[in-house]
Each structure stands twice: as structure tokens, then as C-alpha cells.
């Protein structure tokens, strides 16, 4: 089994706010991230797929194809957007790095699976070079 990873970057703004909490609790739990005017990051998205190299091409997947899928399914929706305001899945879910990794998985998994050559193995989202979250499709 070979694991292949493609990286892409996107820039987006967000804030952390739980609508069912009073303002004071949001500010206490989320600190500076609760600023309702938002703030932004340069995110790095790492998509890892697993499979066997094709006997003819030697590819697990064509990287150009994977780049296109990531662009259409994730970057088109997230890049240069306000995640809370512009992205449907974050209308009622806080765009933490964990939730972004899960949401990117949900966007990519059906497309990767439908292609039938490899399975999606891992999504890693870096919010900064020091902070990241990962989702592996676990329940």
C-alpha cells in the first residue's frame, strides 16, 4: 500500500462562536478567536490517498487529477472566503481546524471513492505552521 499526499494552500477568515452560549462564555472559551469581526489564516490542506500503483502508469492516482479535485471541491469553496459566512457547512458548525478537516473529508471522500482507484486516507489542515488538525474518517 502506498500513501500519496498532495498539498494546497488557501486563505480564509473565520471566528469561533457558539450561538447557544452567551457572549461572555464565548469570549471566555474562545478568547481572541471569538472576535465577531473575524481574523484570517493561510491554511495548508494536505490530502493523503492510499492505494497500489497502477501496473502501467506506476501512479496510485494522477496527481494532476487530485489537484483538480482539491481545487474544485475544497479550494473553490474556501479560498478567499469567510468560512462562517460563505461556506454552508459552517453556518451551524464552528470552523475550528478540526471541523475544517472533517468538512474537507466530506467534500473529497465521495469523489475519490467514485474514481475507484484509491481510498481517501487522511486530511490534515494546518492553520499556521505550528497548529494543525487531522481527520482519518473515523466515527
Amino acid at each position, binding site marked *: 500500500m502506498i500513501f500519496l499526499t498532495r498539498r494546497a494552500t488557501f486563505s480564509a477568515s473565520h471566528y*469561533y462562536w*457558539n450561538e*447557544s*452560549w452567551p457572549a461572555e462564555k464565548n469570549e471566555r*472559551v*474562545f*478568547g481572541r478567536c471569538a472576535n465577531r469581526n473575524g481574523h484570517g489564516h493561510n491554511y495548508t490542506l494536505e490530502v493523503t490517498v492510499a492505494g497500489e500503483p497502477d501496473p502501467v502508469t506506476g501512479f496510485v492516482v494522477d496527481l494532476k487529477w487530485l489537484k483538480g479535485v482539491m481545487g474544485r471541491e475544497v479550494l473553490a469553496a474556501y479560498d478567499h472566503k469567510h468560512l462562517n459566512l460563505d461556506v454552508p457547512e459552517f453556518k451551524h*458548525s*464552528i*470552523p*475550528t*481546524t*478540526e*471541523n475544517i*478537516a*472533517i468538512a474537507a473529508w466530506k467534500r473529497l471522500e465521495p469523489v475519490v471513492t467514485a474514481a475507484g482507484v484509491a481510498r481517501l486516507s487522511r486530511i*490534515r489542515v494546518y492553520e499556521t*505552521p*505550528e*497548529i*494543525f*488538525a*487531522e*481527520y*482519518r474518517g*473515523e*466515527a
Partner: protein
Amino acid sequence: MRAYFGRRYLLSASHRLHTPALTAEQNRTAYGKCNNEHGHGHNYFVEVLVGGAVDAETGMVVDLVAMDDAVRARVLDRFDHANLNLDPLFADRVPTTENFCKTIFNLLHDALPAGDLENVRVEETENNFFECSAKG
């Protein structure tokens, strides 16, 4: 839903790879430059990966500030700008990055404010790193 939250920390420390179990000559052969009598140092990157359910209210596996506090108290305050060989945990173990990685894993595994310790990765230089995982 189980996800993972990771954070990278920088710490600078010195060490010398040397064991009393070997002769001076054998130490030089085994450890090369790392056996230099007066030690040397590195900027270590410690990457801590915490696994757990994403909290429905916060969207988080673990609170970053609380995690930072735990790592600072258990690891950074202890080893940053220190000589690893002089730490009691290395009194009878060579502070290779393999052993350093295991030591950090053991110091952190019961110290996290939420979730469980999935993996510790210690980068000694840009070209080598070591990992210690909950899966053994």
C-alpha cells in the same frame, strides 16, 4: 467523531551521546561527533498529536491554551535551554532523540487536558526526526 489536533513546539537543548557501558573508544565509534566531551545542542521541534472526539459545543478535540499549558509545564519548562544529560530522567539513559521522544511521550500521556496522546514526533534537525506512537 474522532479527529486529531496537533501542535509544534520549539525547544533548544544540549546533549552528549555517551554511555558508561562502552569504553571511550567504543563511544567515539558508536556516536561519532555526538560523543564530543563537552556536548552540543539542537533546536528541537516537538510535535504533539492529540486524538479524541470533537466536542459538539466547541468544535475542538482539545483546548489549545490548556494543551500549551500542559506541554509547557511538563516538557518545555523542564528541557528548554537545558542540558539533557543532567536531567534525572537521563541519569542512566543516553539522551538520543529516540529516548528523548519516549521521555516526552511518557511525560505528556497523562497530562493532557482532554483527548489522548496519539503521537509525539521530535525533530532533532531538519533532516532527522523520531516518532513515538500510542500504538507502540
